[in-house]
């Protein structure tokens, strides 16, 4: 994992750490079942307060990204990684699509409106019932 934290930025260190761990999962540099370094090792490697690492790990656990196994350590959860893989696939397709319409010079707002429209068309009655339920 290549983590870089900026203590002077406006973003709290533990938030940066949470985001970067999630990103590492997204890019595949850590995978389901992988063990994260212990709080202590992570703190020593990154040269930050162990409490900061502990806070980040707690947040990650709460979000279902990792599992803290008592006595063993922190492990990346499967379901999230699977989800991230799907995201990776979708991102590739979306990226290609955006590249292809780049020459049309649409504004970002216009593109967002298009995406929203397409999503709306595809919403099933079941999803609509859930939304307005």
């Amino acid at each position, binding site marked *: 994992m290549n983590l870089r934290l900026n203590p*002077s930025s*406006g973003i709290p260190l533990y938030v940066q750490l949470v985001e970067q761990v999630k990103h590492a999962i997204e890019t595949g540099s850590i995978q389901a079942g992988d063990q994260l370094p212990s709080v202590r090792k992570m703190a020593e490697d990154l040269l930050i307060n162990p409490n900061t690492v502990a806070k980040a790990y707690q947040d990650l656990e709460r979000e279902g990204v990792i599992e803290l196994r008592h006595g063993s350590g922190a492990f990346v959860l499967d379901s999230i990684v699977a989800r991230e893989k799907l995201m990776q696939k979708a991102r590739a397709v979306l990226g290609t699509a955006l590249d292809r319409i780049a020459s049309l010079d649409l504004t970002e707002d216009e593109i967002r409106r298009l995406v929203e429209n397409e999503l709306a068309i595809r919403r099933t009655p079941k999803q609509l019932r859930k939304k307005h339920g």
Partner: protein
Amino acid sequence: MAEAVVRISNLSRRFGSKDALNDVSLEVPRGCVFGLVGENGAGKTTLIKHILGLLRAESGSVSIFGMNPVADPVSVLVRIGYLSEQPDLPGWMRVDEFMRYTKAFYPKWDAAYAEQLLEEFGLNPAARIKTLSKGQRAKAGLLAAQAHRPDLLLLDEPSSGLDPIVRSDILAAVIRTVAEEGRTVFFSSHLLEEIERVSDHVAMLHQGKLVLCGPLDQIKAQHRRVTLRFESPQATPPVVPGALRVTGTGREWTIVCNSAQLRQSTMAARFGAKIVEEDDASLNDIFIGHAE
């Protein structure tokens, strides 16, 4: 709630006509990393001398581990590992002799841990201290301060004048201390990046007065850095009552303020300006803001 390892109440100290410390009150909770910042001459070392019992409180009180360090120096000092800014180690001693010498003062000296540190710091036990580089000397001093696993690790500008690699080593040693339960670190520094990396609590001294004290996250969240864009370029900095610092030119001005005292949106509205960027202020912003 963790008990306080250091409890300082209304401490004042004059040297001649100068107020080195002016009504300073702070508490260092057990198990935390407490960073003390301040420009040179702000009173940091004077405060540390009081903690060590080298100065008696002229007015106010100092309590370390619930004890008076002046009345009971041995009981207090045996639980403190102290590293001064320019460690004054006996040049003629070899590193291993220095370790043996220091060990005699501390019943809790852990020989195995000392050996481990010796190896991690890459120090040659046979080397005479006067042959060591500045960085190695700092590490030797840190070894002596840590090897008896002190309840309070007290560091006065530990990274002063050291190259980045040695600074990292020292920071790593501090972090290892913290990771061991119940031990507390108090360090003074003007290297704000270090303070921001490892501190839970921060206090800022300016001309003997405590201008800030509290959990680092809270302090940073309370101070915002806001960039305003004005309709027309401003010839002079906008006057923002209560702002810590105002910088910029022309249409864009950056304001560092305490958001408890100054609401950004109100401020922007008053000027008829737009907020184009908003962040937690960095410790550097806050420091400069209070020091100016």
